[in-house]
């Protein structure tokens, strides 16, 4: 299968991407209207936004790596079962 043209990709996926980008913008506006201290997840999201315009062709991989726990040794114990989406110490 030959690679699609830019127009073909836009025809297929632009409206979906447009809607998701506007949702993200609305989320950040909502955050800015809110009170309270900083949240590591939102900090991680803002850091990831810089990746989007840098022209790297592996943006998803780069963002996922940015949000990942960089340590390599097993934890002695965990006080939670859940993950938050962004490494809390980022």
């Amino acid at each position, binding site marked *: 299968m030959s690679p699609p043209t830019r127009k073909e990709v836009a025809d297929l996926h632009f409206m979906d991407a447009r809607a998701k980008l506007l949702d993200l913008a609305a989320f950040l506006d909502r955050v800015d209207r809110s009170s309270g201290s900083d949240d590591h997840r939102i900090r991680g999201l803002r850091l990831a936004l810089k990746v989007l315009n840098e022209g790297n062709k592996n943006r998803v991989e780069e963002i*996922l790596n940015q*949000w*990942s*726990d960089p340590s*390599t040794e*097993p*934890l002695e114990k965990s006080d939670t*079962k859940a993950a938050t*989406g*962004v490494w809390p110490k980022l």
Partner: protein
Amino acid sequence: MRYIEPHGHMVSRTTDDYKAMALAGCAAICEPAFWAGFDRKSADGFYDYFCQLTQHEPARAQKFGIPHYSWLCINPKESEDMGLAREVLALIPDFLNALNVLGIGEIGLNKNTRNELKILEAHIDLAVKYNQLILVHTPHLEDKRKGTRLILDALKNNPKINPGRVIIDHVEEHTFKEVVDQGFWAGITLYPESKASPQRAIDMIETISSQRVWLNSACDWGHSDPLSVPKTALEMKRRGHTVQAIDNLIFGNPVQFLSQSNKFIRPEII
């Protein structure tokens, strides 16, 4: 269209879901043991669950003409309690002879703790001892990359493990290549919020590998969609992939992996 749902927690789904999956072309379902959303207090709870996976659920699926297979383990979310975990591990051998059990799974890590790792290694030993296929759950979100690497190391540390008989599930863009490059199979899970969307899944298939990989919905009691595999097939079709390429991914690949168990019967479809 024909497809296999190689990872679905059907005990959490409705009968209407079975009907919708049958109508969409689902030819077989595989159900790994998992976390119920709360911690079970005793091994007796797991005994009942294993009976459900090996007796009740196959009968439920059969009402819609869908063969049902299962995998057994204690999920990593409950393996922090090593006493309970070892009691549950002791139950598993008696269930391995059930006609629908394909292997040990979904084992793995959740928060990447030392206790989780010890129970993962015990599951790997069990699979080796009884010559079982292995289905591995990799951790969620920020814990996935580290956990995937710890899991791959644990598997490679056992010289009797054949990577071609192990599937590492829930891979994403930052873990997929590492898994397949080391000879393991990879599973891409399609979730509405976490893990992969249909679009990202097909991006990975196009740019990383279409071999040694399957797609699954991992539908359970959380945000999930039991029809996400056929919906992703539609995404492939919209992009112009051939019918053969789509069939290879959603039917041929899982058949190839699962057929390594002599209990798996290549499904016929209408």
